[in-house]
């Protein structure tokens, strides 16, 4: 038997930064701090960028809507994840980091954005608080209700070295699933909402019910092949109306999906 929580209790504590962000998030790395603007041509323009989506180093411009205030994280930075940079906003309803949101159901508030993104469909990226990776804390017996929207939910997918493989599954809830053609797409990426990892198994149109497999052990012969090195990848979910073989809501003509309630579960196994 492989016990997830035994392995990862410490890491859970490390991840629980416990702050939130709203609307526009500032993301810092050790030397510089950046902000991602989505659908905000004015902010991009004032920073000398073109288009409505841009990454701007802090100091280049000032957001017109929300003024984030940087605070000191309350916990240590995890060793297997990107720097835990946290900001708060003027909205005191929500305090989350990239790894923790305010929703009890694992879905972040619409409109939130996380660090460096490259959304295939140009949608915003919402930070999720679940981590089904081998170094994560949520793979196991629990299922999590999540409402997937046209905003990408990017869950961190932490990898630690070892002969691990696993599954991510979605199923519908008792709440009505939209009947307008909305389906849920899921993919793994190196950046939140970024391009899928190489391989057909690394992204999929799950519809309203389905599963995908991943393997860092090299023993399965199926699923999304993930390097067996410590890293933080991202598991992305997005709801859209598109062609059946569009696995990342990025096909020409892909339209925004309606909010799609699902249960989400990750499972983790260790090859013996």
């Amino acid at each position, binding site marked *: *038997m492989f016990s997830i929580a035994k392995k990862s209790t410490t890491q859970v504590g490390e991840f629980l930064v416990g702050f939130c962000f709203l609307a526009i998030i500032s993301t810092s790395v050790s030397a510089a701090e950046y902000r991602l603007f989505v659908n905000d041509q004015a902010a991009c323009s004032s920073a000398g960028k073109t288009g409505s989506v841009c990454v701007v180093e802090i100091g280049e411009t000032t957001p017109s809507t929300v003024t984030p205030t940087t605070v000191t994280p309350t916990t240590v930075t995890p060793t297997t994840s990107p720097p835990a940079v946290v900001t708060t906003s003027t909205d005191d309803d929500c305090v989350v980091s990239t790894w923790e949101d305010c929703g009890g159901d694992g879905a972040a508030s619409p409109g939130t954005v996380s660090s460096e993104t490259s959304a295939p469909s140009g949608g915003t990226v919402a930070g999720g608080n679940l981590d089904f990776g081998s170094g994560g804390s949520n793979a196991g017996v*629990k299922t999590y209700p999540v409402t997937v929207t046209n905003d990408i939910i990017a869950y961190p997918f932490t990898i630690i070295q070892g002969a691990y493989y696993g599954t991510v599954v979605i*199923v*519908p809830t008792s709440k009505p699933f939209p009947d307008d053609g909305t389906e849920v797409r899921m993919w793994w990426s190196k950046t939140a909402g970024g391009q899928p990892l190489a391989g057909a198994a690394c992204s999929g149109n799950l*519809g309203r019910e389905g599963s995908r497999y991943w393997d860092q052990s090299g023993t399965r012969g199926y699923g999304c092949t993930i390097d067996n090195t410590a890293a933080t990848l991202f598991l992305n979910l997005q709801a859209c109306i598109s062609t*059946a073989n569009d696995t990342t809501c990025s096909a020409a003509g892909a339209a925004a999906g309606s909010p799609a309630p699902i*249960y989400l579960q990750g499972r983790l196994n260790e090859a013996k």
Partner: protein
Amino acid sequence: MKKNLISLAVAASVLGGAAVQAGQYVNPDKTGQVLLFPFYNADNGNATNMHIVNTTGKAKAVKIRFVEYKNSDEVLDFNLYLSKYDHFAFGIVKDPNGTGAAVITQDNSCTVPALGSPNAPFDGTATTNADGSVTRVQPFTNFQYATSKDVDSVIERTLTGHVEVIEMGVLTDGATAKTKWATFATHGATGVPANCAGIVAGWTSGAFETDDGVDAAEGGLYGLSYHINVESAAAYGFEPTAIDDWSTGATHTNPGSLLPTVVEGVPTATIHTSAGATQYTSINVGNGAQAVSAVLMTESLNNDVMVNPAIGGMTDWVVSFPTKRAHVDKAAAVAPFTKTWTGGPLKETPACEVISLAQYDREEQTFVAVVSTDLQFSPTPPDAPAADPAKICNEVAVIAMGTPGTASALNVTTGLSTIESTYTEGWQSMLFGTSASKNSMTVGGYKMTGLPAIGFGAYKVSNGAMSYGNAAEHKTVSNNVQSS
């Protein structure tokens, strides 16, 4: 072919080909990690009784799931914790306090939640009998489809369906006194689990979240079932399809969850190719739904038909598609199915698949219906048969052989349809699609024709006041597979 021969064949295939893990397969030994009962019904005084048996010396966590007949929407599930060598028996009957179906049992095996519990507005009951046994009744629910905007949201939709049994793993004993899961599930001298409350507490306390309590599933479950109507004095035995190597790990999930589901097993499948020296080949299908479908694929179903009026002959065919929902409850149908299901909100559009029937009498005379999809000379004969091709629309189809209005041998009314039978005795072949356009899917480098179907024929004869029933599993054509 026995399991060990399949394994050898697969091993040979794997060694000679790509490094693909041997996939899930239908175990001819009739034991496995997953059991698919093709049918239950609780109409008109009917009861479908089922047994689930753990043939191994290890305690197991098992998910029991009941799904309705139209779209395989779940109507009830619970976790079952089987002791080693345990035997769990239950029936599916009409809810004594309602109009839908319910599960009823006097079995002592540990379930979470306990059967007979509140579940408003479909509350269960637990009644202690004079001998100390407890009769537990847990009604099915319509939550999954009534709130999903289906036009047909009535609870009576639960009266017909099929049952999935999924081994979630082998129970282990944890390190603390409160986590001795295998010990808790084991029956003592009194025949009751040592500490079912301890297993319940594993969920309420969150202990299972710390230690999921199970090792990987190992198989060894078997099931049997019989459908009975006491008044009409006939019973029909049938067995589930057993799938092994469905999972390489544990899938132990909290009660109250729709997980695990039958379509989330390993994405590899061992299929019957019947080509060359290797009769079985393991393929990487890419997803669990089509992997299960691959092992259930059959080009046609074949079985007896007996409707001789001299002996009151009646025949039902039960045809079930256990994975259909995963293929049709989508924006676009996924092969081998071709139509999508819509439950509402304005009208129900079932996912109907065309079937082609060939009927034979006992002396090789045959009749093949002419349908509108066939090319015909003009003018057509005046007695041309029905123009529309026959179709199957439900995920569990109960088809009485005879003219419309023919009664069912199984005494079923919910979801009943009919097929006219040309001969009073003989056999019938049901092809999925038409001879010119068969249902098919191409996965893992192979094109396989047909649909993933299981089921049986049910036969009833009457002799005065006495009647008799028997059932026979459908014969399949699983080897019409071509490398693509």
